């Protein structure tokens, strides 16, 4: 049995600056040893602990989809010790990765249903993985209509520009991009995500919703979804808590009796309302 | 002692009844022998919870920082010194607190008593005039209070409150003149002996930070040991990290430490933490002629200088 605390070595293949403030970069990583890659079987919505040797570990959701083998992608915002160091690293440098961890998005229950994906800002990374997964040829037919709403402060803060463009050119997904502030040359919507949701959301019947984004976006989007008749059991959110071990032992990330690292990070809204916590949305 | 308790209750009741303060911070009976503990009284009817005895070791000045209410605080000599420092450092406004000064008879050192009893369980403690009587399951022992006071109490020359709005009892006799016989004799040891002692003490530390958290003058929002960006100090319990934590902790209190001994009292392992602080107090006293927690007007020694400060330690080639 593999020691769950020991990371697999990975190498940085490329680094892409995503946002205009240069605070979010997407790192493409590849496994140094092939056998490690074979053990790393993940689903969209799961996360991994990335090691910067000498600085420590931090958890990040996989931004790449398992349907794109050979590499992993992580979009990382510069905030703490590990991420600050990561942002100074470049191609060829060695990191560690421990995972996959957590439960991931419930793909099975989504089959045969419409899918509504609502993302905001930096919280979009695992939803991007989910979108790419669902759009992949063999998976696309498992889901009905797919609607994507993605908002950011300004156009320069939207991640994954080439993906967004490719999706907009497809007919099997409806993509609504929105920004808080208008910019010259912006052709998408202007306004907050909850408002756009109210405007373009598909029929609540037979639709599964995935939401991830900043707390303010979530708190304001949930009432809209409720109003539109979406059931609590069919809305899934990805939670953020301070995680360390990732295997439900270190005692940090519990909300009531659930460990976000093991039982989550994805919970249905119904489950979240049942958690013993004072920070329910 | 009873008169003192009655007076404390009376003052507290009056203040709460007249609405002069929102809360009275004092001591109440603890749940186990040797422990009186902090309590917060918010209504006149509750004032009878307040007590005073030889087990009121906590420094209640700890609780005034970052509190918005108007507070009355039952304060012995060292508590008032800490309050004075906090006022000086603008951590609490003088008019936000009402100080009920209590002349202090010294507090009994539970850890030393435990060691004396070889940790046999105590059922009751009864304080008499100059002694206290301990009863256990099959033993009884009468000990001399003076001998079992905390070291900080034995050395204390500030038993009476230095700043107060009201005194709850008559002032007690204090010895005069600051002396540091313990520090001087320790300085007389060789480098190696001192290092042996210090590293033995450090090896027992579990880094629970009780010393830091019990200290009334440790109020940084983020302590240097907790800071992660940059990380100043390692978190493991190695001799090096532990030693440097304690040195740095003491140094942060240079010229501020009021020698209440709260650090040492809170240490579950009875480590001689106070020695470092006391050494600094001595140096501050000898080099800069300053004693913390005595005067509101005197500038803190490390916030000022004199052109003729000692240069004895400067290297001359």
């Amino acid at each position, binding site marked *: 049995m593999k020691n769950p605390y020991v990371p697999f070595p990975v190498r940085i293949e490329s680094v892409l600056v995503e946002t205009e403030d240069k605070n979010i970069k997407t790192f493409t990583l590849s496994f140094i040893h092939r056998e490690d890659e074979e053990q790393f079987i993940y689903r969209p919505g799961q996360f991994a602990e990335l090691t910067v040797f000498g600085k420590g570990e931090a958890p990040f959701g996989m931004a790449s989809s398992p349907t794109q083998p050979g590499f992993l992608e992580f979009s990382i915002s510069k905030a703490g010790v590990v991420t600050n160091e990561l942002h100074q690293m470049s191609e060829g440098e060695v990191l560690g990765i421990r995972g996959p961890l957590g439960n991931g998005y419930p793909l099975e229950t989504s089959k045969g249903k419409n899918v509504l994906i609502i993302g905001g800002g930096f919280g979009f990374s695992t939803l991007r993985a989910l979108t790419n997964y669902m759009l992949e040829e063999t998976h696309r037919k498992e889901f009905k209509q797919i609607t994507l709403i993605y908002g950011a402060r300004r156009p320069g803060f939207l991640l994954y520009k080439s993906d967004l463009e490719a999706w907009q050119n497809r007919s099997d997904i409806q993509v609504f991009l929105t920004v808080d502030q208008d910019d010259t040359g912006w052709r998408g919507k202007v306004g907050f995500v909850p408002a756009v949701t109210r405007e373009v959301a598909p029929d609540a019947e037979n639709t599964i919703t995935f939401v991830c984004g900043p707390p303010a976006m979530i708190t304001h989007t949930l009432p809209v979804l409720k109003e539109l008749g979406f059931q609590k059991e069919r809305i899934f959110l990805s939670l953020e808590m301070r995680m360390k071990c990732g295997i439900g032992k270190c005692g940090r990330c519990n909300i009531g009796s659930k460990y976000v690292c093991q039982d989550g990070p994805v919970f249905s809204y119904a489950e979240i309302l049942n958690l013993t916590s004072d920070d329910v949305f | 002692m009873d008169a003192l308790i009655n007076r404390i209750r009376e003052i507290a009741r009056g203040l709460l009844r007249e609405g002069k303060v929102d809360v009275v911070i004092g001591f109440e009976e603890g749940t186990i022998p040797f422990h009186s503990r902090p309590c917060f009284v918010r209504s006149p009817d509750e004032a009878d919870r307040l007590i005073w005895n030889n087990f009121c070791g906590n420094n209640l000045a700890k609780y005034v920082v970052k509190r918005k209410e108007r507070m009355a605080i039952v304060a012995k000599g060292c508590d008032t010194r800490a309050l004075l420092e906090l006022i000086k450092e603008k951590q609490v406004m003088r008019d936000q607190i009402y100080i009920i000064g209590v002349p202090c008879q010294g507090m009994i050192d539970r850890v030393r008593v435990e060691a004396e009893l070889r940790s046999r369980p105590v059922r009751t403690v009864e304080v008499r005039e100059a002694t206290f009587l301990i009863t256990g399951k099959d033993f009884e022992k009468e000990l001399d209070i003076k001998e079992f006071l905390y070291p900080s109490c034995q050395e204390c020359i500030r038993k009476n409150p230095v700043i107060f709005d009201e005194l709850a009892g008559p002032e007690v006799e204090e010895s005069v003149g600051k002396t540091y016989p313990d520090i001087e004799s*320790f*300085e007389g040891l060789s*480098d*190696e*002996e*001192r*290092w*042996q*002692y*210090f*590293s033995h003490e450090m090896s027992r530390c579990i880094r629970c930070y009780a010393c830091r958290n019990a200290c009334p003058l440790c109020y940084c929002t983020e302590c*240097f040991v907790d800071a992660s960006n940059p990380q*100043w100090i*390692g978190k493991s319990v*190695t*001799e*090096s*990290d532990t*030693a*440097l934590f304690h*040195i*740095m902790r*003491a*140094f942060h209190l*240079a010229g501020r430490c009021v020698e209440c001994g709260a650090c040492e009292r809170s240490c579950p392992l009875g480590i001689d933490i106070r020695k*470092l602080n006391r*050494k*600094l107090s001595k*140096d*501050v006293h000898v*080099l*800069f002629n300053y004693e913390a927690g005595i005067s509101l007007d005197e500038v803190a*020694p*490390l916030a000022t*200088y*004199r*052109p003729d*400060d*000692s*240069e*004895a*330690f*400067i*290297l*001359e*080639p």
Partner: protein
Amino acid sequence: MEDQKMAEPKTAKWEPTIVAFLCNWCSYAGADLAGISRIQYPNNVRIIRVACSGQVNPWFILANIQQGIDGVLISGCHPGECHYLTGNYRARRKFALLKSLLQFVGLEEGRIHFTWVSASEGVRFARVIEKVTDIVRSLGPAKKMVKRI
């Protein structure tokens, strides 16, 4: 790394490593002058330039000790000559206490030194380095409070 460090003295060629924090306005200029004037001094010293001796956080010194640096020197402008008027006076109070405290816990007296060197004192700078190096060399490699990884 540490293991190497510990092993070195056996080879009899062990040389101490000394870190010197020099203030920009006087002591660093003094070191510069020593260099320009080609005054010889031991090469054990690694110089870190700081704005003022008053800027040196006691932790800088402790961090050096922790990392196994054998000796630390802090040097500023002579009293009364500080570029910031009072920085070195404040440093003097701070370090009088720190040096005394470290000695109190048993650190060898000669590990940490403080001095003043002005911009015109190239010779004094060289002498200071010679003296510090001699003292630290006589103490042998640092052990107390050194962290082993």
